[in-house]
């Protein structure tokens, strides 16, 4: 199964819509410095450097080379990862594998995106599939809207349930100094009254375009115990790819598709002796593409039976003080620098395990946490973190 690997350093920038004050490299450097400080390590202690983003936003060729000075990658090995929405988690996988192989003792892993560099809609619709998608792609928005409708029709969920999820996310974000959108929403009514953007999705139900970076430092067991008293162990990581377009774009109308989310967690749970996810795992930071999707993801990740995700929300089970907290950091709907987002999920889950999440630390004691990532064509990366192995 490989050698043991722990997260020993966590750093992220304060995510904003526009970082006019820094270049792309400097922004990444902020997260790197924060992670090094957290680990009390020097750049010389890092053996390999991995970067990840979704390149069509910044349109920069070889971003990893361009930021070698700010990531202290000069003369070091490493990789650039570009797997779209899951890039930030695939880069966690790379660092994890390098150290688990026993060939490296430490690795620095960075997810980043400076979305103020480009136009998100243009980047997604223009560069997804030039020959085929031209003229018919509506970006992610149309698909989320249809998914929401299907969910309501299939499960009996109401707009109020989605609004509750939105409110939960904002509560968490307001207690997370790094989050981007911290709106101070007071009621479900506020969400419902915000007006429709793409029916039935409301204005407040869209994630922002954020600029930010998140860095993690991994170490082998031997090194980790010397670096920190609170290593967070990467118990396991599963990636499942799905063919683009096959998956019926979020909310499969064929009824025949297998969802990569189900397959990924089935493998993860089986390999790690998890039989009752909400009992065996203490909390989750999931990649929810929309607040509506969060409810259906509860079902895909087996937190609840099929078609009952909205019931978990109604009972408040996934609130910070609830039985099984989900996304106390505010989630993707509060902060979404696309390349960094999956890394942030792992970072936030790790902070919970360490007990270092400050004001957004959940009530329940967290000895095991799960972080997930989702990519455009319905890929999933699921990571399991533990306080002790």
């Amino acid at each position: 199964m490989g050698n043991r690997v722990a997260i020993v350093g966590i750093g992220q920038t304060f995510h904003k819509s526009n970082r006019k004050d820094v270049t792309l490299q400097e922004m990444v450097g902020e997260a790197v410095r924060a992670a090094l400080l957290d680990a009390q390590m020097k750049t010389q202690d890092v053996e390999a450097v991995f970067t990840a983003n979704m390149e069509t936003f910044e349109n920069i060729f070889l971003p990893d080379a361009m930021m070698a000075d700010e990531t202290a990658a000069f003369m070091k090995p490493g990789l650039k990862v570009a797997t779209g929405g899951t890039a930030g988690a695939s880069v966690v996988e790379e660092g994890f594998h390098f150290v688990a192989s026993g060939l490296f003792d430490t690795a620095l892993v960075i997810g980043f995106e400076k979305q103020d560099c480009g136009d998100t809609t243009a980047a997604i619709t223009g560069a997804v599939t030039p020959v085929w998608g031209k003229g018919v792609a509506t970006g992610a928005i149309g698909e989320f809207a249809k998914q929401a409708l299907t969910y309501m029709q299939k499960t009996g969920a109401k707009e109020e349930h989605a609004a509750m999820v939105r409110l939960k996310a904002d509560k968490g974000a307001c207690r997370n100094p790094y989050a981007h959108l911290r709106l101070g929403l007071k009621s479900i009514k506020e969400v419902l009254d915000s007006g429709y953007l793409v029916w039935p999705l409301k204005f407040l139900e869209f994630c922002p375009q954020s600029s930010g970076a998140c860095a993690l430092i991994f170490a082998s067991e031997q090194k980790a115990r010397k670096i920190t008293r609170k290593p967070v162990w990467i118990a396991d990581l599963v990636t499942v790819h799905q063919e683009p377009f096959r998956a019926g774009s979020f909310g499969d109308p064929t009824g025949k598709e297998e969802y990569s989310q189900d397959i990924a967690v089935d493998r993860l749970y089986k390999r790690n002796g998890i039989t009752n996810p909400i009992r065996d795992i203490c909390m989750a930071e999931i990649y929810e593409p929309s607040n509506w999707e969060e409810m259906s993801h509860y079902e895909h990740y087996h937190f609840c039976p099929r078609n009952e995700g909205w019931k978990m929300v109604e009972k408040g089970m996934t609130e910070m003080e609830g039985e099984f907290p989900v996304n106390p950091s505010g989630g993707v709907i509060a902060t979404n620098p696309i390349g960094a987002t999956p890394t942030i999920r792992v970072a936030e889950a790790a902070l919970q395990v360490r007990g270092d999440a400050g004001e957004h630390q959940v009530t329940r004691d967290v000895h095991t946490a799960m972080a997930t990532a989702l990519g455009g064509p319905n890929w999933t990366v699921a990571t399991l973190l533990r306080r002790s192995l």
Partner: protein
Amino acid sequence: MTTEKAEKKPELIKVDIARPRTYKWSSGKYLGRVYKEALENKKLVANRCPKCKELIWQPAAVCGRCNVEAGEDWVVMSDKGTVVQYTYLVFPLWDPHYGDRLANPYPTATIKLDDDGVFLVHFLEERDPEKLKNVKRVQAVWKEEGRGRGLGDILYFRTIDE
């Protein structure tokens, strides 16, 4: 008399680069066939996997699920179908495909094509939200001129009484 301390914010420079990049994409044999059928015959086609017997959408050389060569078992699909799900823009969105401001005003829908056809994502002609609730059966309206854009050769799907 108070002296105001002028808090001068440092000037920050931005460089704007807005240059279209030209590309040439080969559609390949399979996608190319779709383009050709749409252009010449106003027909939608797909190839069938020899193993799982499912229609491959979008047509490709390999069936991804079975990991076998898909082959050339081409099927002409019906361009009539049933709406499975739809959505519409309430607030105009900037859409880079259609120019400056408004995105395509027609609602997007997932349509199940007849005769065991595939699920197609395309536009509906009907724009009234009230009438949209009752749209079930639709048929493609092809462009008479200026075809050659694959699925873009269909303008939208029109409601039919059936």
